[in-house]
């Protein structure tokens, strides 16, 4: 063990002209290293991919079975809410590439909350903010990384889902081409959807600085609130179901939808609403982090 530093101090003027100093690209690289060097993150990302593709395969299998039942003149299968007319199976089939979102968003939301909240839980945040004392670049870089990774995972999962689903759907002639209307957009937007989920969740995690609280809040916003609106409080006032279209996951659904629902937001509107959620939470988390003590 040596007892002194290996590099002697150079004269102050000479060492600052170039060489090591902060830059956003470098902070990005640092955040990328952080994401890839904690095993649980990598495992969670791999799980997300597998689960999403698996769900899509199951969904297409379920469609194929339902179609077969119909063809053989059996009782119509239970797809969707009871009492409603049976939806068009070929329309449903086109939704399979993005069907993994249902579960994928839960994993991505947890990941995004954990990535930031665990820094507070472990004390890592102090190292991060001493290295990047302006704080905003560090947080921004973390958001960029988690959004990019979520986008890639989402889009890759949707594309893989498409590939896996085709042979299953083909049994009942429900298969479709990539070049069909809105299919590529749905696949790409599966990535966009997860990226926005990630940014919203990271904003929540940054504001709460707590893993459990952050995950619960994100789940509440994404899953519980829409259900509450539909099942419990939609009768209270006319505007409530109307307003619920603007909840992040409800708006996001339109982003990946292949068939536009009546009265729903358009694809672009859905995307913009969800993006607005992301921007508001991101800006709030940046402002708060700049002000608060670490």
């Amino acid at each position: 063990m040596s007892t002194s530093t290996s590099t002697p101090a150079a004269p102050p003027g000479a060492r600052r002209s170039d060489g090591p100093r902060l830059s956003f690209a470098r902070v990005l690289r640092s955040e990328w290293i952080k994401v890839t060097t904690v095993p649980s993150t990598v495992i969670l990302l791999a799980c997300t991919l597998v689960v999403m593709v698996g769900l899509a395969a199951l969904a297409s299998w379920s469609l194929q079975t339902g179609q077969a039942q119909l063809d053989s003149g059996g009782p119509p299968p239970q797809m969707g809410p009871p009492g409603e007319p049976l939806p068009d199976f070929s329309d449903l089939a086109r939704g399979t590439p993005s069907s993994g979102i249902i579960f994928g968003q839960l994993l991505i939301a947890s990941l995004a909350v954990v990535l930031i909240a665990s820094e507070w839980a472990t004390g890592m945040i102090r190292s991060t903010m001493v290295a990047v004392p302006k704080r905003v670049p560090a947080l921004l870089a973390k958001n960029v990384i988690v959004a990019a990774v979520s986008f890639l995972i989402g889009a890759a999962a949707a594309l893989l889902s498409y590939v896996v689903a085709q042979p299953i759907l083909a049994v009942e002639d429900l298969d479709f081409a990539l070049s069909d209307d809105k299919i590529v957009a749905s696949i790409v937007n599966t990535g966009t959807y997860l990226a926005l989920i990630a940014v919203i969740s990271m904003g929540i995690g940054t504001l709460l600085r707590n893993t459990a609280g952050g995950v619960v809040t994100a789940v509440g916003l994404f899953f519980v609130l829409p259900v509450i609106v539909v099942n419990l409080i939609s009768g209270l006032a006319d505007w409530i179901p109307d307003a619920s279209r603007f909840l992040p996951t409800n708006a996001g659904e339109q982003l990946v939808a292949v068939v536009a629902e009546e009265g729903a937001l358009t694809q672009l509107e859905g995307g913009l609403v969800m993006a607005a959620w992301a921007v508001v939470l991101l800006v709030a988390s940046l402002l708060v982090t700049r002000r608060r003590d670490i």
Partner: protein
Amino acid sequence: MIEAQGLFKRYGDKTAVNGISFTVHPGKVTGFLGPNGAGKSTTMRMIVGLDTPSAGSVSVNGRRYAEHQAPLREVGALLEAKAFHTKRSAYNHLRAMAATHGIPNSRVHEVIEMTGLGPVAKKRVGGFSMGMGQRLGIAVAMLGDPQTVILDEPVNGLDPEGVQWIRHLARGLAAEGRTVFLSSHLMSEMAMTADHLIVIGRGRIIADAPVSEIIAGRGQLRTRVRTDRPSELLAALGGDGTTSTFLEPDVLEITGPDPRRIAEAALRQQVLVYELTPLQASLEEAYMELTASEVEYSSHDLPLGAQAQDVPEGSRS
């Protein structure tokens, strides 16, 4: 060079740092000494911008820490042990820190070697002992080859070899002309390492002077004397300004006269003296004296430390 001016930090209605001003100069080791909860850590956190001062300012090498283009090259800081993600390896933690400044990987390997982390570098930080965590913290602090080094309680949890290593490291860095600012509540450690002391208590600076001056200014001359006939020797010394305590039946600690006067008295009285050791006033005693008076000034408050101790923890996190 660290310059603090009128630095205040309040957490709610508690004042952790109460308007302190000081300068830490390059080329020597400056010790930051005070009991737990005196405001040492809070001050150090303000230097690197983790806490925002309620009032006043602190600059490093002429600027606020956050305004530097390469903060890690200006200041290397070990603040609290374990500012690391527990699931990441030491090597990857260092890599991630280095990446923010584009510090090459070769430097990462250098600081791993320097801190003796080689054998555990690829292991998860979560399994590290406190001493290992401390070494990793120091490795991070040294990454940017910084001009100013801030170490908060660096010897905490280190084994004797590690303690000695820190001492050499701090002295070596200062000898290279760097600014070294080192906090501790271990007075003995400071006596060995620091050149200059800033003593803090209850968020206020009590003393800011070279170590030798603080020791010289406090405490009196004491001498340990071993003799067969202590009472005769004491009688020969006379009463004026002499106090004594028996350490053992034949060992005395005499305060007041210098060793030469004691020897002369023994010679006059024909008393055999077979040990005569001048005892330097320890920094510890000087420190106790300093902080004791600080307690007296506020005798209606809680005892020193008890009140302020919980302040940083309670209002952070």
